[in-house]
């Protein structure tokens, strides 16, 4: 087995702060993971709403009222942004995996596109339906 290189190794984005400058590439990648966890938590609300509808009119009124309150709207919009961003970030992974868009400049452009498109899609779903 090859010897372990103990020094002179590339810095990891884990060292963000004094050692590692935040960039579009590292930040957009970390956000893909954060949005996945956020979306999984938001799925609890969606399932609670479905379960309430399947239970009774009273249960539905409670959960539906919660989701349609101002705070509920805010959380659902955040959840929509998160899942759309995650979807786009994962699409970028697929594009990379097929061998395209691996240049730093292209990756950065895609990161910016992910933020913009996620916002557009979340606004579209929130306002149009």
């Amino acid at each position, binding site marked *: 087995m090859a010897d372990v290189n103990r020094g002179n190794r590339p810095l990891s984005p884990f060292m963000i702060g004094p050692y590692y400058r935040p960039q579009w590439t590292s930040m957009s990648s970390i956000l893909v*993971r954060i949005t996945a966890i956020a979306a999984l938590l938001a799925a609890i609300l969606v399932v609670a709403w479905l*379960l309430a509808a*399947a239970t009774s009119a009273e249960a539905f009124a409670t959960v539906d009222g919660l989701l349609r309150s101002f705070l509920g709207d805010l959380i659902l919009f955040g959840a929509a942004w998160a*899942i*759309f961003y995650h979807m786009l970030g994962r699409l970028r992974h697929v594009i990379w995996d097929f061998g395209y868009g691996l240049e730093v400049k292209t990756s950065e452009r895609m990161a910016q596109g992910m933020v913009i498109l996620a916002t557009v899609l979340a606004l579209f779903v929130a306002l149009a339906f």
Partner: protein
Amino acid sequence: MQRYLTDRKRARGLGAARRGTHHHWQMMITSMLLVILVPAFAITFALGLGGSYEEVLAYYGRPLPALITLLTLVVVIFHLMQETIVAVEDYVHGIAGKLTIVAVTAASYTLMAAGIFAVAKLAL
């Protein structure tokens, strides 16, 4: 002083051999499915939310909203569970990490089952 490293210690934390490629390909498949399912679900859910109790019951009685919701519950929650497990593997180690993975898995499958039950009851 020369530090002594066993082969095992060098390999620890670098991931299991063989299974990684399968996991990676599974994530690529669900990632591609997200591109269809996420917009479909977002629109379906947005259309369903806002209706009265009776309207919501009728809405999920239709095949398309019910099917899109069921597929989302299975595929998207599975994908998000895998994402969360990988995050746990990276940041939580030892017994705590293992137990967190068990908890995330249990919670995700419970969420999936509860959602499927609810949609089935609404649809049938």
